[in-house]
């Protein structure tokens, strides 16, 4: 059984984001990078299935981007993926979801993956389009936002997370693609021996130009902070003084402190 998990490397979301020179995405200076949080759940689920299947199963991790994304790929290898593909694209951030999905689909097309895992969205772009679009381009069964996953002999039983805490139980047969929601499992931390073992695993590099055939369908005109709502007060300073200021405000503005 051949498994694929697609991951993205994103900035730490606690970072302060500044527009780049073109004003259409964030500047990459002074950012710390990590694996997209949704993708950590996708990798964990793929690794759990790979371990359950044992011999004969193969799990590939794929990422698109500049050389820095190899760090995220190495983490996925240390979590338990067997091998990796790095689609080298220094300009990945300028591609739209349709193009990114098309590159993944072009890679996967003749490789007969039985099951593809992705995060439900990225933390930075957040389109929630790439996974579903890959499935559509490859003609795979697909369900999204899963918080439960079981696999038995070609049949996948998932729980989709719906609004208000309700879940939808969905069954599908391989070949399939699922997009993973936060809370699906508990992503493992790579252990030191597994980090060492991962260093020997193969990372195949493919140039983006070999896979990219599609023009973008959307254009980003600008990247900017949200308009300030106004009215909100921002308080900074020493804790004791902040406590007194807040109590004063609550006494004045709310009926909660009596």
């Amino acid at each position, binding site marked *: 059984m051949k498994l694929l998990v697609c991951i993205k490397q994103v900035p730490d979301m606690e970072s302060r*984001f500044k527009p780049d020179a073109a004003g259409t995405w964030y500047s990459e200076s002074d950012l710390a990078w990590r694996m997209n949080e949704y993708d950590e759940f996708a990798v964990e689920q793929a690794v759990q299935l790979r371990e359950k299947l044992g011999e004969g199963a193969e799990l590939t991790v794929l990422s698109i981007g500049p050389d820095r994304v190899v760090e995220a790929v190495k983490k996925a290898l240390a979590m338990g993926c067997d091998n990796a593909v790095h689609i080298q694209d220094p300009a990945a951030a300028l591609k739209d*979801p349709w193009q990114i999905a098309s590159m993944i689909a072009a890679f996967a097309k003749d490789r007969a993956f039985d099951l593809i895992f992705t995060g439900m969205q990225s933390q930075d772009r*957040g389109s929630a389009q790439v996974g579903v679009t890959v499935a559509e381009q490859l003609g795979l069964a697909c369900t999204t936002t899963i918080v439960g996953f079981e696999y038995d002999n070609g049949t996948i039983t998932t729980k989709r997370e719906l609004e208000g805490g309700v879940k939808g139980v969905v069954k599908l047969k391989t070949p399939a693609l699922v997009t993973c929601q936060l809370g699906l499992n508990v992503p493992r931390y790579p252990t030191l021996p597994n980090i060492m073992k991962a260093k020997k695993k193969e990372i195949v590099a493919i140039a983006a130009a070999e896979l990219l055939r599609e023009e973008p369908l959307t254009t980003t005109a600008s990247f900017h902070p949200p308009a300030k709502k106004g009215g909100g007060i*921002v308080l900074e300073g020493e804790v004791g003084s902040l406590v007194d200021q807040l109590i004063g405000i609550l006494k004045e503005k709310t009926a909660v402190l009596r």
Partner: protein
Amino acid sequence: MKALLIGEYREGKLLDSTYELFGFAAQLGAESALLLVGNEAQLPAFGGTLYLADAAVCGEYNPDLHKKLVLEAVQKENPDYIIFVHSSYGWDLAPRVAAALKTAQISEVTAIVSGGFEVGCCNAKMRRTVKQNNNKAVLTIQAGAFPALQPGGTPQLQRLAAEGATTLEFIGYEPAEKKDVDLGKAEVIVSAGRGVGKKDNIPIIAALAKTLGGELGASRPVVDAEWVSHSHQVGTTGQTVSPKLYVACGISGAIQHLAGMKKSDFIVAINKDKDAPIGEVADVLIVADVMQFVPALTAKLA
């Protein structure tokens, strides 16, 4: 300009979010048609063309058949925009429709702006203005971002049917876990977010809730990490609340959380990140380490 709006049913009921589609279409200045996979007993008052398929036949979650139905309505209507709510239904179906039409999709639109549509990015800390490169676009709109609008009138019904093999089987709904706390009735909610650091710190947040005579709430990551049970979760997948006072402790303010608490009368946020999106809805943002500030506040109030 024409829009095809895709409404949503859950367990036989038309979802209120469908009216936000009308509100959005009105802002867009579009003439709307509506597609529903639902039932005739539950139709909105709407004076335009309503394409109706029977959910008893096509299912409430059956993306293969629903995609076919949307594409059929698109063919009849030739809309400029095909519009979904950015919900578990919308973000699942919209990319399938966009891929079939090979047309632009713009996800989770928060505003209509000059030159395109504004969408959130970077965990809602930043915004992008996005435009489509072709003359047709699929849009999903952020839940709660546009006012609900009841258009009124009687629809001209056009029935649609779809059949054929489908690649997945919907087994059924699993109800939400029973709640051991009803946050909806609380006058004060003090919520813990990832910024509290670890499970051992939860009692410190709970102590402030108790001192203020309120209940403990939580953001999603705290519930996922099992620091607090799901019945305390505030947000789209938890409870929607509107207390007199909401205190967000170490919560960055993901859209799903904001949607569940932004109608609170007064919001205090404690966060060491001055740019955290929780600041967008907070009446007071205290820039401080939550584990230093909260115990000091509790001690002073006690």
